[in-house]
């Protein structure tokens, strides 16, 4: 366990084995500047700028006592308020007290938590106190010596007291002095002045107890060594333990939350393994979705195998599996580097930036694109990775923008890369009519001669097919019309469809082409004058020119026949070209009003970065603020799936940490964060837990709306873990119940009336499986909710028993036992989500069933006691 005090007014408690934050202690009203553990392990004390000291219980992390005292009169601020707990557990010496006219170190006594006495004498605020880890006792020899030396003025009176063990404490202050005291004497044992030029900031005792290290703001460290005759004789650890045991009883027996059922322990091990295995799993994921083949692509498969091997090994080895498990996973992130040859033939690598804001990377690339000829190849790939972070490389759309080769200032070049797809929608003069004009901004406006190129990989015709390219080149024929006042030009665009250099077909259309889209089934070409031309694969104009009224600005298609189009005026269409049906016709105008902060910049306008079809086939709009909106066809309205409403959420940074994008939602979220990071000023908002929960809940719902099963699972897990940590039983119960479905008895009855039928699957994953594999192990991380956990364990196994009976005639039901998780988890995570959803893990079935019955047997005893208890607690169930 590690406790960390933070400027966000909280103390975080960390589990060092898993690295997961166990709990957050909220209660201080200002910056927390010191924290100390009770050597007995029952409490933790923290001191804050709000001039209080809070004692927390470690059993349930509740506040045991808030002490106000001599700190109230303290003036000024210090960097630290490093309080200390005596090794005997009886005293807490705090810092930065003030008792007129002296600065003091008030001492609190255990139990009452009231001030018993103060260490007085420093001329400036006390920054740090540090108890020696050991206690000391005076040997008869040294006591005599001391008497002779005349040191022990206070203590020599009571001879019997001499044999009592005492604490030794060092105090460091802003007045640049260190004092060392013993609790047996009212005067300091030792005062060190003139050591430092500036304030003392920290002190530390050596493990043997006879050396003291002190460091100061002047940049120096002092080491003070004591002789046994000065401090006394150190108590051995055994003696100290004995002392503690006499005073507080046996420490080992007082573990706060005892396990009530063996299943709890089982699930706890699973949940710790889950934490380790999870990351490796997501890395495997990352391997699968990388769109850019990196230099080590060929070895990915091999690596993955070795990684899985490692994973298995670490799972077998209990204990600190974490460090081992994560080493291979870190290695296996594909490195996103760019390699090319310089003109002089030397190889040059542009490394992947790790842990720096993305825009730095951007600038770096732009720099190089201005200086070196291979820019065009680098630049479009940048666009690719930004806009299609998750497309499984079925189609790759590249936009060649000739502007990049020009000598442009760096800033502009960057704007072109990141904002070339930005359109600006401004209400025209007749804004009252609701007519919206879309104006294109920088990147597109300036470029009059613009080539568009898309490439479509047709996987159906075999692996080796070269991509089919559709290119649109504007051709300007100057008409030499002699005698006419102005020389007019006809704008024509030539469309050429090529496959590996060979022209398949070509066509010419009037006007400038603004957008292109295509897939193995059709091509769509949108023009500036608001026309849309649809071609078949071979270039036949399959429909008469469609009139959109205004120029198409975004176009996207899925792999079959769906085509999405957004016009300048903000209309959105989705067609099914096979059935020649309009699936959806809506306007982006509803996004304008919802985005108030943007409209302050330009009244009633939105900047759109991209519009495309999400993997689930719904239109997905990303605005310049990186807010992402998804159109839900059943609700017929826009849903905001990614936003920046939760800057203080504990999880807002979690997506960013995986270096490779791991899913659709994550990609959007990371974009939002990158955008936010670009804005100056990071306002420090104290998080009260509510925002984190709201954030997790909305992420959870968004991933469901995006139909991204992997992220759904991830969000669910994070949410349940959070709830478990906060011990939010009512919410946990709700989540579990929604995954459990209606009670078994009623299930058969419910099947007859179909109006409220419970769907046992979510995004193709069985809900019971999620409950058993993810939710329950995640809940096991906090023993406070173990009653709830065991209740649902029982319910779930009841369900599965009836299910098994029902499914006996049908195929074998995919039941997964919790104890089988380590092996099945690997399998699950290394498989693509779709496969996970459908294939029952039959290999493990035999073992699981037997193990499960094992649990049931062990539990049956405790169940009998549990039952009445449960009914009391939850009369509704």
């Amino acid at each position, binding site marked *: 366990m590690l406790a960390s005090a933070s400027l966000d007014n909280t103390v975080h408690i960390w589990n060092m084995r898993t690295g997961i934050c166990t709990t957050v202690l909220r209660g201080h009203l200002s910056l927390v500047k010191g924290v100390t553990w009770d050597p007995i392990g029952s409490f933790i004390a923290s001191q804050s700028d709000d001039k209080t000291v809070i004692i927390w219980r470690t059993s349930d992390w509740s506040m045991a006592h808030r002490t106000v005292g001599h700190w109230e009169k303290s003036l000024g601020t210090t960097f630290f308020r490093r309080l200390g707990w005596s090794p005997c557990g009886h005293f807490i010496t705090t810092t930065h007290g003030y008792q007129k006219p002296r600065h003091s170190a008030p001492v609190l006594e255990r139990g009452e938590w009231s001030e018993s006495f103060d260490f007085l004498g420093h001329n400036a605020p006390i920054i740090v106190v540090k108890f020696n880890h050991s206690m000391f006792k005076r040997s008869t020899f040294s006591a005599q010596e001391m008497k002779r030396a005349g040191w022990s003025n206070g203590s020599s009176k009571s001879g019997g007291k001499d044999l009592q063990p005492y604490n030794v404490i060092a105090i460091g202050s802003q007045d640049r002095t260190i004092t060392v005291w013993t609790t047996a004497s009212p005067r300091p044992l030792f005062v060190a002045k003139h050591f430092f030029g500036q304030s003392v900031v920290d002190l530390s005792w050596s493990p043997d107890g006879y050396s003291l290290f002190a460091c100061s703001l002047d940049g120096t460290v002092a080491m003070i060594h004591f002789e046994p005759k000065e401090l006394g004789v150190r108590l051995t650890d055994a003696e100290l333990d004995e002392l503690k045991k006499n005073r507080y009883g046996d420490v080992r027996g007082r573990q706060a939350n005892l396990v009530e059922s063996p299943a709890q322990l089982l699930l706890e091990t699973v949940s710790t393994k889950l934490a380790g295995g999870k990351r490796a799993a997501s890395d495997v994921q990352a391997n699968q979705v990388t769109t850019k083949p990196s230099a080590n692509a060929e070895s990915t498969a091999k690596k993955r195998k070795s990684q899985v091997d490692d994973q298995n090994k670490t799972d077998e080895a209990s204990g600190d599996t974490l460090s081992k498990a994560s080493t291979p996973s*870190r290695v296996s992130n594909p490195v996103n580097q760019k*390699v090319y040859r310089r003109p002089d033939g030397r190889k*040059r*690598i542009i*490394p992947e930036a*790790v842990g720096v804001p993305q825009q730095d990377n951007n*600038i770096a690339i732009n720099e190089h694109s201005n200086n070196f000829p291979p820019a065009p190849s680098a630049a479009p790939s940048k666009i690719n990775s930004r806009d299609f972070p998750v497309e499984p490389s079925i189609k790759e759309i590249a936009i060649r923008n000739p502007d990049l080769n020009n000598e442009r200032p760096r800033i502009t070049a960057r704007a072109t890369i990141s904002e070339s797809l930005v359109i600006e929608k401004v209400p025209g003069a007749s804004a009252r009519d609701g007519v919206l004009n879309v104006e294109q901004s920088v990147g597109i406006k300036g470029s009059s001669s613009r080539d568009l190129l898309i490439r479509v990989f047709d996987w159906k015709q075999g692996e080796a097919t070269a991509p089919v390219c559709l290119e649109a080149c504007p051709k300007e024929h100057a008409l030499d019309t002699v005698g006419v006042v102005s020389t007019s030009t006809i704008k024509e665009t030539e469309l050429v469809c090529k496959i590996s250099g060979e022209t398949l077909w070509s066509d010419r259309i009037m006007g400038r082409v603004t957008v292109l889209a295509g897939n193995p089934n059709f091509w769509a070409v949108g023009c500036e004058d608001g026309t849309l031309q649809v071609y078949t694969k071979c270039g036949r104009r399959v429909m008469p020119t469609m009139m959109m009224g205004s120029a198409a600005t975004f176009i996207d298609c899925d792999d079959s026949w769906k085509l999405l189009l957004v016009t300048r005026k903000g209309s959105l269409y989705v067609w099914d070209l096979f059935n020649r049906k309009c699936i959806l016709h809506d306007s982006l105008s509803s996004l304008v009003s919802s985005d108030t902060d943007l409209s302050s910049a330009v009244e009633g306008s939105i900047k759109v970065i991209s519009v495309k079809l999400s993997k689930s086939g719904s239109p997905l709009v990303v605005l310049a603020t990186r807010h992402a909106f998804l159109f839900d066809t059943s609700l017929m309205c826009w849903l905001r799936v990614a936003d920046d409403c939760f800057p203080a959420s504990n999880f807002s940074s979690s997506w960013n*940490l995986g270096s490779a994008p791991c899913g659709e939602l994550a990609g959007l979220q990371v974009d939002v964060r990158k955008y936010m990071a670009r804005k100056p000023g990071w306002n420090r908002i104290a998080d009260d837990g509510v925002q984190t929960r709201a954030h997790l809940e909305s992420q959870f719902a968004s991933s469901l709306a995006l139909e991204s099963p992997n992220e759904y699972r991830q969000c669910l897990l994070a949410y349940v873990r959070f709830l478990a940590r906060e011990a939010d039983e009512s919410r946990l119960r709700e989540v579990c119940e929604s995954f459990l479905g209606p009670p078994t008895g009623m299930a058969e009855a419910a099947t007859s009336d179909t109006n409220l039928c419970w769907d046992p699957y979510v995004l193709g994953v069985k809900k019971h499986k999620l409950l058993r594999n993810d939710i329950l192990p995640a809940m096991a991380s906090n023993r406070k909710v173990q009653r709830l956990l065991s209740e649902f364990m029982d319910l779930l196994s009841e369900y599965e028993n009836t299910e098994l009976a029902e499914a006996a005639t049908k195929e074998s039901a995919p039941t997964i036992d919790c104890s089988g998780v380590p092996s099945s988890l690997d399998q699950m995570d290394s498989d693509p989500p779709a496969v996970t959803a459908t294939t029952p893990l039959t290999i493990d079935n035999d073992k699981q069933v037997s193990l499960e019955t094992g649990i049931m047997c062990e539990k049956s005893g405790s169940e009998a006691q549990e039952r009445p208890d449960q009914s009391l607690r939850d009369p509704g169930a």
Partner: protein
Amino acid sequence: MSAINITNVSVLDNPAPFVSPFQFEISYECLTSLQDDLEWKLVYVGSAEDETYDQTLESVLVGPVNVGNYRFVLQADPPDPSKIQEEDIIGVTVLLLTCSYMGQEFLRVGYYVNNDYEDEQLREEPPTKVLLDKVQRNILSDKPRVTKFPINFHPEDEQTPAAADPPPPPTEQSDDQQQADDNCDEAQVLPEQPPIPHES
């Protein structure tokens, strides 16, 4: 104070056949921006006695060098066995990964490499003619020797280039620090990480 600190080197694809390419994933941090690229070199020591048998397997430039943490994969061809003496192929040798800036080497990571037959029987009775395709290469990646040389990263700032000075005694570093760095990085990958302040 070095402008570049190496934070981690992972030897990928190890152990591997003798004839397969080397792969190193190198992470480094840059504290001050540098104008020129970094040059990373991989040198295979063909013979312990004679430097002329050293083979530079790969030399790449890495840049632009801006402040931040970076990583890349250095891939290099295997050593040319024809340039190594027959008797030196099997056995322990050294692989050097060096980094230099403007021709001045400031970092050197040395690895012991053990080349041996994978097959038990061949190991017992090695054939007179080396069977290259049966030789397994094992880089002792957990025992790197890191040596740092202080160089002048900004020669234009100071008039006396440090390269003219005799190289001071190299400072040997154990891999403990690397391990520690590893651990730091791992902590950040955790899904339940509290907010890390983003100074923008």
